[in-house]
């Protein structure tokens, strides 16, 4: 493989054919990654939750990363996946919100518009084989209407009453599907999220015990300070694994 100064490269395979490859910029694989983000609609608005970890392969390298941010006046954005790409997306959104404010016309971008913008960004990058390696959760409330949606690195996008990314798709979604109801109170919604966060802590290797909950309502956005959850280990079978059989896995 020979790489020229302009980034283009050529390689020849065993049968002698030459393959010209234009490698402008491609995220080939992620380096520093965040794990699941959870979102749930409740009576007054929407709650998002995530842990504050940034993994570097299998190492739990960074433990204080805020993966949920406020966007404009009406939205929250949570991200899993490559943190450098998330930081870049935040810069794109800064620019978007800035231009929106410059109009100075009393109107402001709502969550639906931001979700649509992100969908276009992610899908167009996917088409160039140069994805932003993230799964995004966009939540917001404007004029009484709640919006909760997901955009993935492939450009897949959807909305629902409760959403999850990464491992959360497998572990949290079944819990959310069973326990979600219309008009949950703030306390009920937090309890459901914490149930999901605990399961992810037990069963997702890339999760850490340091979480952030964020709330968005018509009044505004709040990102609460990080906190940890207790875990339960006092099952008899855990304490005496060999009681009923030789050894234990």
């Amino acid at each position, binding site marked *: 493989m020979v790489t020229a100064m302009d980034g283009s490269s050529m390689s020849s395979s065993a049968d002698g054919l030459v393959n010209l490859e234009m490698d402008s*910029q491609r995220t080939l694989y992620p380096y*520093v990654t965040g794990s699941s983000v959870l979102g749930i609609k409740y009576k007054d608005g929407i709650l998002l939750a995530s842990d504050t970890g940034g993994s570097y392969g299998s190492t739990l390298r960074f433990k*204080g990363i805020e993966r949920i941010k406020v966007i404009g006046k009406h939205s929250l954005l949570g991200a899993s996946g490559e943190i*450098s790409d998330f930081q870049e997306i935040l810069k794109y959104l800064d620019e978007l919100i800035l231009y929106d404010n410059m109009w100075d016309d009393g109107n402001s971008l709502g969550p639906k518009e931001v979700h649509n913008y992100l969908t276009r960004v992610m899908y167009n990058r996917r088409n160039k084989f140069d994805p932003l390696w993230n799964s995004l959760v966009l939540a917001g409330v404007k004029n009484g209407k709640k919006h909760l949606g997901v955009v993935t690195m492939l450009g897949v996008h959807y909305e629902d009453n409760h959403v999850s990314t990464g491992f959360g798709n497998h572990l949290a979604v079944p819990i959310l599907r069973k326990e979600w109801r219309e008009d949950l109170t703030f306390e009920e919604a937090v309890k459901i999220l914490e149930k999901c966060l605990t399961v992810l802590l037990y069963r997702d290797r890339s999760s850490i015990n340091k979480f952030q909950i964020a709330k968005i309502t018509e009044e505004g956005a709040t990102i609460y300070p990080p906190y940890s959850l207790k875990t339960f280990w006092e099952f008899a079978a855990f304490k005496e694994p060999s009681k009923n059989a030789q050894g234990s896995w």
Partner: protein
Amino acid sequence: MEDMNLNAPHSMGTTIIGVTYAGGVILGADSRTSTGMYVANRASDKITQLDDNIYLCRSGSAADTQIISDYVRYFLHQHTIQQGQPATVKVASNLIRLLSYQNKSMLQAGMIVGGWDKHEGGQIYSIPLGGTILKQPFAIGGSGSSYLYGFFDQAWKEEMTKEEAESLVVKAVSLAIARDGASGGVVRTVTINADGVTRKFYPGDSLPLWHDEVVAHNSFLDILAGSSSPEPMST
């Protein structure tokens, strides 16, 4: 012995560290640059100046980090002229991030930026592979850092004195050198605060001995001369 692969790209296996303390920052690094299994430079300087008050710890590909630091030094110099005042640590770190992020498919560079400016005091920014930027009270990087996560979890404290912070950094690099084949040589530190910049140099023999390491001598003959029988080998 297997082929030493003397044409492998120069890579700094490396241990790099940056810590903040009560008045500024301390940057530390080992000094080994390897080409495959061969040590191409045993006394390299991995702590590079970007500006009077801002330094960069480099790990990964030697070529990549050298060219990145050259570009950023050049941009920062222009920026200082245009602004009419010294560049901030945040600006220098973001320039490193931009080059790292925008060329992520081609670069192998893990870097730590440390410096002092009058707006925010001492700051450390970590910029690992991929171009993520994170401001941290302390940062570790390079292959040797794997051995230091547990050490820092236990030994790190906020608001240390300059002396405490310096000895923490030297101890840490020395521990990493003990276990990481890709780190070695001397320990270099750079201290940056309101009063300026100080470079220190700790040669191998001045470092503490860790598990299963023994005291250095000029010759076995000195040991023989010093006692009636040679030191017995322990099992």
